């Protein structure tokens, strides 16, 4: 990245402000003049989409919080009040619930992009790990938010997830009681989940700032996986990346709007329209779709503690990716063997997701176990070995060369 700022404020106020708080210069160097690889494809627009979705969730969430009551006797009714009485309440609620799903769709695409193009490799390890932290915070936020309507799935999902901690030897039960604030999931639990659900998105925002900072220090990766060598390899962020991001953000919003206006309950679970009943567990408890692969992994392991460890391990292993993948070549474009294993991995994740929604019986259990073993094997066995044995394709000399050659 270049050194001094090229920002020359035109109007007098900006010149005055720039001497005192150089925010104009910061925005200019980060999002206007910032050198961006010229070969970025649309998979690179999801970072911007994620920032947009975080803002959208925060805004719709704050507005919903004006009408929601976090008490076990009133919560469900208050959500129905939002749906039926509050002006545009139905829209705000569906924007927020479907927005969460959109947030996760975008984050999975963003993560798979990173895995395909080697965006986690040196010097972007910290950037990647910050991303894993953001992902964990998102999962926590999503879980907490889902409990708030206090439907059957809210209550029993809360019970199951908080019970994970009872697997901890010795202190497990104490930890769970401490989480619950009582002898079971109840009003104290709901109240504190509401507080934490309001808090965590702002923690996410803070880590996102670190994430973008870490990105801007090392610069973006790109589909060729080779660093920019000269000015010919990059273009100014504005207008090129700005417009590309905005365009695909609009397309993404169309996809989002399709769910909100035509199939707003498709990704949800009908049982959450039944008020929480502490005496009756629904027949098939399932978390929201974005947790299903991890749910499948949890259930695949027959031991309680090991299952919980496998679940958290399956997420935490992502943080070690920069060191598990030993290949010197970044982008899967030049790694023909890795590319195949990557797509197998994607299919495995989708299948695990599908299995997470199935009852834990018969062939589903067998499949889940096989795929769980493969999931971990991908990271612990396949990636390290590929780096040593794979014959990679020759890398282009520069980004601009790879763009020009692509036509051939």
């Amino acid at each position: 990245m270049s050194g001094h700022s090229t920002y020359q404020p035109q109007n007098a106020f900006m010149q005055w402000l720039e001497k005192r708080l150089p925010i104009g210069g910061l925005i200019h160097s980060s999002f206007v003049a910032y050198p961006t690889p010229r070969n970025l494809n649309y998979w690179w627009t999801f970072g911007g989409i994620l920032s947009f979705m975080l803002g959208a969730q925060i805004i719709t969430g704050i507005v919903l919080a004006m009408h929601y009551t976090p008490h076990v006797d009133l919560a469900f009714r208050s959500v129905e009040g939002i749906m039926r009485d509050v002006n545009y309440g139905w829209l705000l609620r569906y924007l927020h619930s479907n927005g969460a799903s959109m947030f996760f769709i975008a984050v999975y695409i963003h993560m798979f992009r990173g895995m395909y193009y080697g965006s986690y490799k040196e010097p972007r390890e910290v950037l990647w790990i910050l991303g894993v932290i953001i992902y964990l915070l998102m999962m926590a936020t999503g879980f907490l938010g889902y409990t708030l309507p206090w439907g059957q799935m809210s209550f029993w999902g809360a019970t199951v997830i908080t019970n994970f901690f009872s697997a901890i030897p010795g202190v497990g039960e104490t930890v769970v009681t401490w989480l619950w604030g009582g002898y079971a999931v109840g009003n104290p639990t709901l109240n504190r989940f509401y507080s934490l659900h309001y808090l965590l998105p702002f923690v996410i925002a803070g880590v996102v700032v670190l994430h973008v900072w870490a990105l801007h220090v090392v610069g973006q990766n790109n589909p060729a996986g080779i660093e920019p060598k000269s000015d010919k390899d990059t273009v100014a962020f504005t207008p090129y990346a700005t417009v590309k991001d905005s365009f695909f953000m609009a397309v993404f919003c169309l996809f989002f709007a399709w769910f909100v206006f035509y199939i707003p309950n498709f990704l949800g679970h009908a049982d959450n329209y039944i008020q929480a009943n502490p005496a009756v567990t629904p027949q098939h408890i399932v978390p929201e779709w974005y947790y299903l692969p991890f749910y499948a992994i949890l259930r695949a392991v027959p031991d309680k503690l090991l299952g919980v460890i496998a679940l958290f391990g399956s997420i935490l292993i992502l943080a070690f990716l920069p060191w598990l993948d030993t290949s010197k070549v970044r982008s899967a474009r030049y790694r023909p063997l890795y590319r195949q294993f990557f797509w197998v991995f994607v299919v495995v994740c989708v299948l695990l997701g599908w299995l997470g929604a199935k009852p834990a019986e018969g062939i589903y259990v067998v499949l889940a176990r096989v795929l769980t073993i493969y999931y971990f094997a991908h990271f612990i066995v396949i990636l390290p070995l590929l780096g040593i044995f794979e014959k990679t394709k020759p890398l282009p000399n520069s980004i601009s060369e790879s763009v020009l050659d692509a036509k051939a």
Partner: protein
Amino acid sequence: MTTVSSAEHTRRDFLYIATGAVGAVGAAAVLVPLIAQMNPDASTIAAGAPIEVDLAPIGEGQIIKVFWRSKPIFISHRSKKEITAAQDVNVATLPDPETDAARVKPGHDQWLVVIGICTHLGCIPLSHQGEYDGWFCPCHGSVYDTSGRIRKGPAPKNLYVPPYAFLSDTKIRIG
């Protein structure tokens, strides 16, 4: 960024302006529900439906308080003395000139229905108090007469008369 001669408008200029315009319309559209959701919702509006009050139990000289749309309403069954005191006034000398007749329903002089909120800063005035034996607001010292009109103190307007109607001699509907 390449510079363009300002003499000719290019396709890029058109696209920028068009995108900006659509973006502005979109931003305005997004603001509408975000701002509208803070207005009273359907259940609040429903709870503000008119109420009926039975006047029969209210004795002469008594003032009762009911709530309509979360506001306190004084219903005063005025005595002869109170009615005379309200009517025998040079209206021009009042801070907020209004005849008593304009504040009651014809043929029902003994019934005064006013919103019990001081028109200064919103406290509830105390009944049967103050120099004119009407209402006295303890917050900043406003004094109202037996017609609920402001006489002394910082309040600018008379106590407001809510919309109401007599359904019979002993029943009113407020709202």
